[in-house]
């Protein structure tokens, strides 16, 4: 009995003494929670800021993409220029020609190669201005391509083309040719 009373007294005393540290712990915990709350608030504000920044960045990227698309569209429009009324278009091509084997002199070889290069340049101009007819045919036998044929043809009339530059190197003649076409040239 004595021991039990003593134990009870000891426990009650210890419990009495033990209240104060738990309060302190609670206070500490409260402080911690307040700190944590403030940190979470800070984190939230940061997240909001980051989200805003991300939204701005996304908007910027979208704008850049739109600008790029516009630039590409402009480039394509320039590449596929349409000849409008009261406007002209400049076309430049390079034609290549080879001298025949049986020439009597280098001068003749040059003259003939140049003529062939001019014809090639004319062909290139005609292709650019009028377009090319293309016809293809593939013969397949026993799951194998036996014969593949591509035929292209151009028919046109070219006038007022100018030779800009002529180079002759190692038997190959290159002629740079230009033509300025206007809408009135095609008017009927």
């Amino acid at each position, binding site marked *: 009995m004595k021991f039990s009373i003593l134990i009870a007294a000891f426990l009650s005393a210890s419990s009495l003494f033990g209240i104060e540290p738990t309060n302190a712990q609670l206070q500490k915990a409260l402080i911690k929670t307040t700190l944590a709350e403030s940190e979470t608030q800070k984190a939230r504000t940061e997240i909001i800021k980051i989200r805003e920044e991300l939204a701005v960045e996304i908007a910027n990227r979208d704008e850049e993409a739109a600008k790029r698309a516009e630039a590409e569209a402009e480039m394509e429009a320039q590449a596929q220029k349409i000849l409008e009324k009261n406007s002209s278009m400049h076309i430049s091509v390079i034609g290549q020609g080879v001298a*025949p084997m049986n020439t009597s002199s280098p001068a003749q070889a040059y003259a003939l190669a140049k*003529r062939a290069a*001019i014809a090639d340049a004319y062909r290139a101009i005609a292709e650019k201005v009028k377009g090319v007819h293309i016809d293809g045919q593939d013969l397949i036998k026993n799951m194998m391509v036996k*014969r593949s044929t591509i*035929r*292209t*043809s151009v028919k046109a*009339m070219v006038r007022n083309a100018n030779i800009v530059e002529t180079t002759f190197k190692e038997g190959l003649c290159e002629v740079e040719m230009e033509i300025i076409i206007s809408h009135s040239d095609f008017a009927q």
Partner: protein
Amino acid sequence: MRSRDGNNNLTLRLCSIIFLTSLALNASEYLISYRYVVKDAIIFNESLDISHAMKSCNGKPQDKLILENTSDSNLNKLISQNQEEFLEYIHKLGLHIEHKEQTINLQNTSTTILTLKTTCFKVDINDNFVIIAPLK
């Protein structure tokens, strides 16, 4: 017939008629055609045909070319003397292009034909120069 001032006026008229007819006779019409074939980037069969026009042509002279004349009345010779200049002029006038290309099993062959269809030219041959102009 005698004029009031004597024969002076008549002789002047006669001289002017002779001069004008001689000028008209010199201004003759020629038919010119030009063609060449380029096969696989090599030229073949270049031909420049020049002949007097049997019939008079219609149209007005345009895009004149003036060549130097070294006392020769033959147009063939005159053109052969100034061949490069004349061919450049013909190219400027306009050539028909007919191009065909064939690729069989990745091996390419091509043929290009450039043609100046037979065109009537008015040619004035003088002592120092020749004026050539197509009639359109």
